[in-house]
Structure formats: structure tokens, C-alpha cells
């Protein structure tokens, strides 16, 4: 199967349900063949944006281009955008085969051409042997694959996935996200993947957009967003972050409590820095911020300490080596930071 690759361009998109503004000033460009994720907390507008691309929900203001065609005013059935629903939305009164054939039949394709295409699509997701089952007789993972086959059978220009893994159990979720990525690479389909799970977004996507309250906070590769978040929302949403308020004074960042931390990057506008827990070293004595161990959690490969410091509580991760962890609750410790790793925030 060969698809015509098409990019997506969204320009100044606004959308509201009646009086409630749900999306505001969305701008983004998704490259042809890219695996792109929308990441954000519940209610941030991810599904609304995805559904707007598919043509569902209120008509938005602004432009959505697929390739160079503006689709905002097209009805859903004319968009040639494939969507996999969170609930899979398999029709329970049709067999797997008929579910997959549906879109082709609606395109008035001759029957002789439909059968091989249905089989090819089912083959792609590895479910050809279940073609004559009813959806009710399939497991969650299998239903998911049928939904996928049903969508790729129509050879859409764009594939939209709304939390496709959220109904699966943890182990299957990991397996399916790998399969999904492999399939996407094989078909070369421009794909948007909605999730509120940062690990899912990190492991699959080429780039992602973080949304909050209907506004795009940042767009970039997973590493860019993790290492260089633009605001504390992004920093906190992608992994654990220690955010310290303060200001720069020469080569040091001076915290509210007056601690002077060495930070390589610098900007006079920065009012906060972000320190990831694994970038803070902990020692029993030496130079740095002194603190007291408040709490200790054993996480397997890591030990996580909650440490009271003059600037509030900080989280520090250390690798776990076999044996007793060195610092107990109540122990006095000294924290020093890796001067390369601090990210600066201006919000």
C-alpha cells in the first residue's frame, strides 16, 4: 500500500462550545510522514483539536490544511482523514471483515477490489485469521487492531489516534505502542496521537505539542521539551521537576533563600530554574545546599529522596546499588547541582 504523504498545517485556530472557549490560537505544522503527539492534562482540548481535524464538533475559526487543501468547511465524510476512536467504535452488528470493508463500500469500490484490500489491511495488523468473528468476540487489543485496519483500509492521507491505548492493560499498552509505531513507519502515514501519558508520547513521537487550557504551550522533540521546557507547566508535565525561584547574579543563580547555585546557561530575564531529580547530587558533606532527608522511597533502580532545604522541598533521585541506601530519614545532607543541566524559565 502506498499513501500520498501529506502534511498538516493549522493556522490561528479558535474553537468554542457556545460560550466556552476550548481552543485558542492554535498554530502548528506537522511534516508529511511525521508521528506527532498531542500531550496534555484532561480537559486541555486535545480531543477537541483532533476531532476538529476530523470534522467533528463545532466548526472552528481559522484554517486547517491537509497538503494544501483547506478542509475546515468540508464535512467529515469528504476529508479522507482516518480516525481511530478511543472506544474503537467497532460496529457490533457487523463482522470484522464487514467493519473493515465499510469504508471501501462507501467509496463505491467494486466488490472484487474490496476483498483483497480488506485482507491486506487485516494482514497488516495480523488479524486475518479472525476476519469472520464479530467484534464482541475479540479482546481489547484485537478490537484495537481491527479499528486500525478499518481506518488504514481507506488509505487516508492522515491518521488520527485518540488515546488509542487507554483501554488496554499496561503490558499490552507497551506492546501496542511499539506495533503502532512500526506500522506507522511502514505506511509512512502522517499520524497524530493524542495522549495524556508522557511516557507514551516520549516513546513514540517524532515531535509533540503540549497543550494546556486550549493553548499550545510548546512544540518540539521529546528531548527538547524535557531538557528545555519553556515554562513550569511543561517542565512539570514532562517528568518530575524541581522549580526554584530567584534571579541571576553573575555566574550564579541566587534563590529566594539566598543560595548561590552555579548555572552555565544564563539569561537576565530568567526568574526560575528547573532541576531534574537525577541531576542533583547528594553527599553527606561538602559544598552546596544543605538539607534534611524528610522521606525516602525505594523505586527499584532508583532511590528517591524528599529533602527539606531552605528553598522548600526538593526531590533527588540516586541510582540504587545493592545494599542499604546510605541516607536515612532525618539525615543531614548536602546537595550540589550539575551546572550544565539547569533549564531556565521566564514565566
Amino acid at each position: 500500500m502506498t499513501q500520498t504523504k501529506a502534511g498538516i498545517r493549522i493556522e490561528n485556530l479558535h474553537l468554542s462550545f457556545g460560550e466556552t472557549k476550548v481552543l485558542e490560537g492554535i498554530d502548528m505544522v506537522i511534516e508529511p510522514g511525521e508521528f506527532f503527539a498531542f500531550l496534555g492534562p484532561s480537559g486541555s482540548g486535545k480531543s477537541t483539536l483532533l476531532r476538529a481535524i476530523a470534522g467533528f464538533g463545532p466548526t472552528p475559526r481559522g484554517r486547517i490544511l491537509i497538503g494544501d487543501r483547506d478542509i475546515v468547511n468540508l464535512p467529515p465524510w469528504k476529508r479522507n482523514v482516518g480516525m481511530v476512536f478511543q472506544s474503537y467504535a467497532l460496529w457490533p452488528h457487523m463482522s470484522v471483515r464487514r467493519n473493515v470493508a465499510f469504508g471501501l463500500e462507501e467509496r463505491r469500490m467494486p466488490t472484487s477490489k474490496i476483498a483483497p484490500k480488506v485482507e491486506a489491511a487485516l494482514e497488516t495488523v495480523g488479524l486475518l485469521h479472525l476476519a469472520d468473528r464479530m467484534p464482541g468476540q475479540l479482546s481489547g487489543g484485537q478490537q484495537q487492531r481491527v479499528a486500525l485496519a478499518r481506518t488504514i483500509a481507506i488509505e487516508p492521507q492522515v491518521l488520527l489516534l485518540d488515546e488509542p491505548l487507554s483501554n488496554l492493560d499496561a503490558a499490552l499498552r507497551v506492546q501496542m505502542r511499539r506495533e503502532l509505531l512500526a506500522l506507522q513507519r511502514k505506511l509512512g502515514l502522517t499520524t497524530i496521537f493524542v495522549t495524556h501519558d508522557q511516557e507514551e508520547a516520549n516513546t513514540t513521537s517524532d515531535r509533540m505539542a503540549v497543550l494546556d487550557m486550549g493553548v499550545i504551550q510548546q512544540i518540539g522533540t521529546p528531548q527538547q521539551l524535557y531538557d528545555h521546557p519553556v515554562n513550569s507547566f511543561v517542565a512539570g508535565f514532562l517528568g518530575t521537576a524541581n522549580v526554584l525561584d530567584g534571579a541571576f547574579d553573575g555566574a550564579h543563580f541566587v534563590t529566594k533563600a539566598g543560595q548561590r547555585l552555579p548555572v552555565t546557561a544564563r539569561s537576565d530575564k530568567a526568574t526560575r530554574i528547573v532541576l531534574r531529580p537525577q541531576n542533583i547530587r547528594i553527599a553527606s558533606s561538602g559544598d552546596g545546599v544543605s538539607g534534611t532527608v524528610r522521606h525516602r522511597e525505594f523505586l527499584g533502580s532508583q532511590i528517591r529522596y524528599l529533602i527539606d532545604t531552605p528553598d522548600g522541598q526538593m526531590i533527588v533521585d540516586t541510582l540504587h546499588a545493592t545494599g542499604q541506601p546510605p541516607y536515612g530519614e532525618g539525615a543531614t545532607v548536602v546537595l550540589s547541582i550539575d551546572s550544565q543541566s539547569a533549564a531556565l524559565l521566564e514565566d
Partner: protein
Amino acid sequence: MSASTDTAARRFTLFPTLSGAAVAGIAIAIFLLAFLVLPVAQVLYVAFLDARTGAFTLQNFQDFFNTTLFRESFVNSFYVSAMSVVVATMIALPLAYITTRFNFAGTAAIQALGIIPLIMPPFVGAVAMSLLFGRNGSINLLLNQYFGLRIPFMEGLNGVILVQSIHYFPFILINLSASLRNIDRSMEEAAQNLGSHGMRMFRRIVFPLAMPGYLAGAALVFIKVFDDLGTPLLLNVNNMLAPQAYLRITGVGINDPMGYVISFILVVFSVFSLWASFLFMRGKDYATVQKGGGGLSRRDLKPREKWLAWGVILLILALVLSPHLGLLLLAFGTIWSFSPLPDGFTIQHFGTIFTQSSQYVWNTLVYAGSAALIDVVLGSAIAYIVIRTGLPGRKWLDYMATAALAVPGVVLGIGYLRMFHGTQLPFGMGQMSSFWGIIIIALAVRRLPYALRACMAALQQVSISLEEAAESLGASRSSTIRRIVVPLMTGGILAGFVTSFATAAVELSATIMLVGRSSDAPLAYGIYLYMQSPAGRGPGAALGILAVVIVALGTYLSQRIIERERSRQTTAGDQH
């Protein structure tokens, strides 16, 4: 208690494990066997007996199908039921479609439409309908005057079809709307996403998904009409199965085999329809609403469509209200014949019924009240035994009680007549089959399935941990039931009582066979008697109004109780 007496000790060892629940269970089983299973089994069995010799034979069935009248009755019953389903569908489909697919201000009106018909038993409105829609009824007089034509709305079988479909279409409306509402929005969106839309999508996706609910409702309508005795009798349509069974047994005699053959056929059809409707719902449970879903997507109506929708609704509303209107005109009218409206108005008919027929009202209150009481006692006992005890065979109590759904009233009536015909009651109360108490039992048995469902639902909402808490604090089983379970079930039990009462108050098909003398007769029978003669129509309609008021009040009350219960449940839930 002195444990040393021989008999007491022996009884103890004879029934070592009989708990209170077991005793209650056995008593209920005996009751259901005696007043439901055996009478019906006997009717079915007698259908296969030679009336003279008592030998097993299929001759009765052969005779049945060789008699033109019976063949005709069979075909008519079938035709009337099927056509009622068709007409009821024509009424229900647009209503269901409008409420579930569009944002429409008239949704409340449609909901009212779904209840109004149910508060009037179809036989009550039947005569009023012939005065409105009959050959010389108001509508046809007007049509004739202005357009020179008459439409045979009420001619023969048409009348039965019209009256029944106006009464029963809510069954289809409720089931169909529920299944339409249960279709998740994503079902439709997935189809649109794959290139489908409009009527084609409706036909391929929405309609098949709503089909099971529709069929379940349709099967119910079919069987209700097939079994109904009162409406054809009041419209004087005798060439149908249920009236034939009634006429054979009351006219030819209790030993005439034809009544039993017809009963057999009625039961077979009932069982089959109920089974089919059960299968439709079970086998293909297409309820596809997901969390975060929310039914089909609705759109706003364009102004022209809005007018059309209101037009359709008002037309149906007029149709649905016509029996009520006709009944009011009859009850308050002086003479109403060959004119669109009565000649004058009076409240004299109400005076007549209060002076002459107050025993009907009194009897109804006693019968329906006692039957409803029996129902909730049996219903909560069965619910408790089935849900909360491990009694062997407890499911069978549920099955037996529910089986009453598949027994047409005529058949139960015939069964009682046959079974208790020769049984003399003590204290000079006469024959058991004509004793008024048997009417109460018949009503109780017929309404038990509904009361049982209400009690089951009520008990299921009582968390078992509440009982365990009481028991752990030292309360015995019986005082836990008395002090914890029953008070918590009160709302549900009350709703069950009111529903049983309201529907038992207007039941006609079983009682009509069991009324021994008119001083023992309930309201429904009184209406039937009055409506036999043109002069009695006024008072008959006045009684009908009374019946409607009773049912309406009952429906309203049980609705209120259920709502109050529900809000109590949810506020209690919020406190957790």
C-alpha cells in the same frame, strides 16, 4: 418452651435445618404452584383431552382448525396484533427520531405522550373512540359534511387496531428511544469518518443498532394485543381468539374443549413472543455508550423542520388524547348520538354511579389494595430469598413468579374456573371459583412479576455491608431484616405497591371470568356492564374517568416515590 415434650423434640430433628427463609420459600412455592402453575398446566393439559372420555387426543386441535369461525378468529387475532404493531410503529418512530436526533424544545411534550396512553386501560376508551371515530362518530360526521366521505376508522377489526395501537405505542417508543440513546456518538462518527453519511449511514449503522430494542418493544405490543380480551369485547368484535375463549367458557360451558385449545394457543404465542423479545435484547446487546460518550450527536432543527416536528407531535397528541377527550364528553354529556358533540352537559352520571354503583369502587379498592399488598409481601420475600440466601432452588421462585407474564388473563381465569369449580369453601362462602377472594388472588398473581422487579431493584440497592454491620453488632437475621433491610427497601416496595394497585384496579380479562355476582364486581367489570347498553354509556364513562384518575394518581405517586428514592440514594452516595 419445654424442650422435654416428645413431639417438639421429634419435630426438631425432622426438620433440623429449616430456617425462616426456607419456610417462607416453601410457602411461596406452594402458593405459586396452587394459583399459577397448576391452574395453567391444567388448562394446557385439558386442551389435549377428549371431553367425553378423558383420553389423550389431538382431536380438539383438529376440530379447532376445521371450524371456520375459529380459523377466522385465529387469523384476525394475528392480523390485528401485527397491524397494531405497524400502526404503533408509525406513531412511535417519528417521536423517537425527533427526541434522540435533534435539540428540540418539545421533548417534554413527547415524554408526556409516552405516558398519557398508559394511564387509560384500552377497553375504557374503546367506546368513547367509537363515538369519535365510528361510522356516525364526530369525525366522520364532520368529514361527511365537509368532504362527503367517511373513513372506516372503527369498522370491525380496524377499531381494535386503532384503540390498541394508541394505547400500546409507548412500549415501542420507550424501547426504541432507549436503544437510540444507547448508541454511542462514535458509532456514527466512525461511519462518517469512513465516508458515509445521511440516510445511507442511518440505514447501515443507526437502524441496525436500534433494531433489537425496537423488536423487543414490538414483540411486547404484539403479545399484549394478542392476549387482550377487554377491548374487542367492548367494541363488540367477537371473532378473535381471546373473546372466543371467553364466550365458549361462559356460554357453552366449562367443559367445552375449544376454550382450552384457544388458551393453549394464546399461551404458546405469549411464551414465544416474550422469549423472542428476551433474545432480541440479550443476544445482541448493542448498548455501545462509552464513558465520555453520550448518545447520538444531535443537531438543531431548521425553522421549517421545527414546524414539521411540532405538526407531527400535535397530530399524535390529538390522537392520543382522543380517548380521554371522548370519555370526558361521554361522562359529562347528556345524549350523544349522530352529532359531533353531545346535546348538553350534566354531572348527573357521576351522581348515578355514586348512588347505584359505589360497590364497584369499594370492591376495586379492596381487591386491588389486597392484591398489591400480597404482591409486595411475596415480592420482597422472593427478592430476599433469591438475592440474599443460598436456598437451593431459590431461582425457581423468581422464574415461577415471572412466568405469570406469559399467562394471558383469560387463561388464568379459565384455569381458576376449571380448578376451583367444584371446591366448596367452609362457612357457607359458596364455591371457591365464584368467591370474591379468588379475584384478589388472580390480580395478585398477574401483577406479581412487576412488584417482584421493583422489590428486587430496591433490595439490590441496599448494600450488603449495612446488613453485615447490623449482624456484627449482634442483631439476629430476622431483626436485621425487620430493622435494616425493610426500612431501606421501603421506597422500592411502595413504588411496587402503587404500580400493582393502579394496574390491578383496571384489569379486566381475568376478573371478567371470575366475577360471581355483580355485587362482587370491581370497577373494570362495572364499566363493561354499563357500556353494554347505550343508556349505560354515560355512567360507564363516569366510572371510566374514575378508573383513569386512580391509574393516573398511582402512576404519578410511584413516579414521585421512585424519584425521591433516587435522589435519596444519590445524596447518600455523595457523603462517602
